[in-house]
């Protein structure tokens, strides 16, 4: 195929279908415009292509050109009409919901979980021989869930087959049913010990749509997740998408397989790490779920916190974080009952937006906690392989409790990419920067960015067939560089500054507990010379000076002197409010006039 000049890509989300038009201009690919419309998977439409048409129609209106014909998207481009390629991702109708099973929870079951998550699934449950449940409890759980598919793993190649057979027998006994397509057989992927294949076939072959792929943990020391992920994507197209209303037509329109949205975002994040040669943490905080992605030591990981989100799941953020953890980020008093009612009302009317500054601040406090909890969850799964310290038969490792070390190294973290409405559409970019600093608490030198209009899914799927177009648009139109944060970690004697930092030769002194914002425009860089005192680390060890070139952004260079991890917010409410106000002011987060106009009766009195 010749080089495409025009590409339309859509992401069919659970509530909104977003379309982007990318075209080659002067030898480079650029985003031309975007359109969006409500997703139409649910009644009364029950046809996903209606939403796609409406979103593309907005692009037609904006460009004055035709892309839609009677049969859908017109491809290839013919003069001023149509587009060369059409692609799509989808998370509509609940996305891809999976259950995974393995023999040992912290080993093959965990590898299976990583395979499913990396493919873009929500993992509904993880079944393992050592998961602490009794056989009948596991069977009841499998029976009660209706996943789109099950990924079954277990055993290294050539090892004992007893335990994996036991799990297969358990699944067979439960007779699980698929979520979609009454009467269809549930797809089960077996990616375990090759010696167990015949037995698994015998047990599950007649009861499920069984697919057998290479073992995802052929030896203890290595994961081989590719074949399982590939089969998950195949089944997503064949089974899940084929059952969803209108997707048969959408699949015919698309020039490449439809990817689950989180799988495509993950691909985008992996591309970022390669493109910029750095370690990355990406986050997509949506209304229902929060996905976290990371690339450390060349290893990609994705986790999804299925019930941490900013609208549908907002109450669950309150439930998991607790009221005190939410209110610690709010610089005024909110009665608990009022806070709870506000959050519940947002949950039941998820499309409403904060109209008052105090409402915005409350939502951003919840976002900090949703991001923090999702990141904590991610750290527990983005780990090195467990049980690899010595060669053992899998049965002998059954009761092993040793844990893999997390791959997340905050000091080595090069870039954070934030996306999702609360970050991408924060009225001031500095609000997004401070939310990410508070939630992730990066250490040393870290670049902060946000996805401008959340086009990472479309660019992820585009990268599978045209990596250059995806990379160019990502760099020029998708990524908004907020700036670089420098966060020294450690303690100093009372009264001493945490660190001195020379920015292009100009000396800045960073006090303990303070935040400072130094102007450094987007597209520019600065040479920083950081001289930490003994006991303070900026990346090369305590007391070791660091010299680096840092990138500017729309917020600038952020010097974060809060030093200790976790952030020690004062216990006393008045001191805490004073500290939050200091940070907000330093970052210029909120309009000063509106802040002062906040109902003073609601504010906690700040001691002079």
């Amino acid at each position, binding site marked *: 195929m010749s080089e495409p000049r025009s590409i339309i890509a859509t992401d069919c989300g659970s509530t909104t279908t977003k379309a982007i038009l990318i075209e080659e201009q002067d030898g480079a690919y650029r985003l031309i415009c975007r359109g969006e419309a409500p997703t139409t998977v649910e009644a009364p439409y029950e046809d996903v292509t209606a939403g796609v048409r409406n979103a593309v129609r907005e692009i037609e209106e904006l460009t004055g050109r035709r892309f839609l014909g009677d049969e859908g998207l017109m491809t290839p481009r013919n003069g001023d009409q149509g587009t060369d390629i059409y692609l799509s991702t989808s998370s509509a109708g609940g996305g891809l919901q999976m259950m995974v099973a393995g023999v040992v929870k912290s080993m093959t079951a965990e590898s299976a979980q990583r395979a499913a998550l990396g493919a873009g699934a929500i993992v509904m449950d993880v079944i393992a021989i050592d998961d602490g449940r009794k056989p009948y409890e596991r069977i009841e759980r499998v029976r009660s869930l209706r996943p789109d598919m099950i990924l079954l793993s277990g055993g290294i190649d050539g090892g004992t087959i007893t335990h994996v057979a036991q799990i297969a027998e358990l699944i067979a006994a439960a007779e699980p049913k698929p979520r979609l397509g009454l009467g269809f057989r549930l797809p089960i992927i077996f990616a375990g010990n090759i010696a167990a294949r015949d037995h698994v076939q015998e047990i599950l072959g007649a009861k499920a749509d069984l697919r057998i792929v290479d073992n995802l943990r052929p030896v203890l020391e290595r994961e081989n997740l590719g074949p399982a992920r590939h089969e998950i994507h195949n089944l997503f197209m064949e089974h899940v998408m084929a059952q969803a209303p209108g997707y048969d037509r959408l699949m015919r329109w698309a020039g490449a397989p439809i990817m689950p949205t989180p799988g495509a975002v993950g691909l985008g994040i992996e591309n970022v790490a390669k493109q910029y040669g750095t370690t990355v943490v990406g986050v997509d905080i949506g209304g229902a779920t929060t996905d976290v992605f990371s690339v450390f030591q060349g290893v990609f990981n994705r986790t999804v916190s299925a019930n941490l989100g900013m609208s549908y799941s907002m109450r669950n953020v309150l439930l998991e974080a607790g009221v005190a953890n939410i209110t610690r980020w709010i610089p005024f008093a909110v009665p608990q009952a009022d806070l*709870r009612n506000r959050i519940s*009302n947002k949950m039941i009317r998820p499309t*409403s937006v904060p109209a008052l500054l105090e409402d915005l601040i409350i939502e951003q406090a919840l976002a900090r906690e949703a991001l923090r909890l999702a990141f904590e969850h991610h750290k527990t799964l983005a780990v090195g392989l467990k049980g690899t310290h010595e060669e053992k038969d899998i049965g002998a490792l059954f009761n092993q409790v040793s844990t893999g070390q997390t791959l997340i190294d905050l000091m080595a973290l090069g870039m954070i990419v934030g996306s999702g409405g609360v970050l991408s559409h924060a009225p001031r970019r500095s609000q997004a920067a401070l939310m990410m600093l508070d939630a992730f608490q990066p250490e040393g030198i870290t670049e902060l960015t946000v996805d401008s209009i959340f086009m990472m899914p479309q660019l992820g799927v585009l990268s599978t067939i045209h990596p250059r177009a995806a990379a160019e648009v990502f760099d020029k139109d998708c990524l908004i560089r907020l700036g670089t944060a420098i966060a020294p970690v450690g303690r100093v004697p009372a009264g001493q500054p945490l660190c001195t930092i020379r920015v292009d030769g100009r000396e800045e002194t960073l006090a303990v507990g303070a935040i400072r914002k130094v102007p450094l425009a987007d597209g520019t860089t600065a040479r920083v010379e950081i001289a930490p005192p003994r006991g303070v680390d900026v990346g090369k060890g305590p007391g070791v000076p660091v010299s680096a070139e840092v990138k500017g952004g729309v917020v600038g260079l952020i010097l974060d002197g809060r030093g200790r991890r976790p952030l020690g917010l004062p216990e006393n409410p008045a001191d805490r409010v004073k500290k939050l106000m200091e940070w907000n002011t330093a970052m210029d987060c909120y309009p000063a006039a509106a802040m002062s106009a906040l109902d003073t009766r609601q504010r906690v009195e700040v001691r002079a």
Partner: protein
Amino acid sequence: MASAYVPGLKVAERTQVRKVRRLPIPGDVLVHQGQTVSPDGVVARANLPGNPQTLNVAHAIGVDPGSVPAVMQKKVGDTVAAGDLLAFTRGMFGFGKRELKSPVAGTIELISTVTGQVTLREPPIPIEVSAYISGRVDEVLANEGAVIETVGAMIQGIFGVGGERRGEIAIAASAPDEVLEPPALTPALAGKVVVGGALVTGAALRRAAEVGVAAIVVGGVVDTDLIAYIGKDLGVAITGQEPVPFSLILTEGFGAIPMADRTWRLLGRLQGRMASVNGATQIRAGVMRPEVIVAEAGATAAGATGEEAGATLDIGTVIRLIREPFFGHLAEVVELPPELTEIETEAHVRVLRAKLRGDGRVLTVPRANVEILES
């Protein structure tokens, strides 16, 4: 997007109602197209596979998994009664004799020579789906269920808990802004669908359970009272399965919020009529709101208005504000500026200007923060 506001919930006095009644697994449909059904009439029936019991025979008898078939006294497909001998071994030279009896009745489904386990399937569990509303079978879904159609009143709430219930509508408040307190919940309300005003208190919820009402339909509830009622905190708005004594349907939201006049007046006119109600709510993929349905006896679709709360915003449209400030207040649209407008948060959003009912103040409100009540 062209429509940023929240379309209102359905509040219709006479509308066509279609309910899909579906089995969770394939089964037998017991009705035919055109058949008249009553709410309690069974539409479809299926047998859920019985609970499986996994028995580790190799361990119980003390043999290798590979020897399990040799000690089994039953084979795959055999039915057994509770107490029947399943497996038996004499041991070495008659010593160490062991036997295993079936703990339940069922069918032998699997004898595994790899794990030494035997799967015993208990008898199937019959499940039925009722019609839920009175009406006519409009469509038969082969092996799955049926679509029941009727004409009548339909009121959707914003949030609810508890599943399907039936009862006669009884008004227990004198005004839509009244708080429903325990004294209003008299024993005469047992089995009724009780309509309150702006709020049901925690004490009133407890009293309603004592009285034995079928459901409460009310403007709002305080969040912590709801948690106490259902016995656990709610993370996400997916409800309907709570083991609560009666279903609770909120028409407006959390806190004390007067019931919308139109809803209040319609429920008033329906007093004494039998209603089918369901508190099940799902505010995600497959949006489902709680509902009150009052079917007209022997009605046909002719003349049904299909009326829904207005679907478009126009000058004069009456709206409810669904976000602070003035949460729950009613207003009338006076201007619909097309351009994005900066609001207090500095966000640029599509807004409307509306005159507040009561003091007549004109407010600028994000369109996403209003709900249409009537055109």
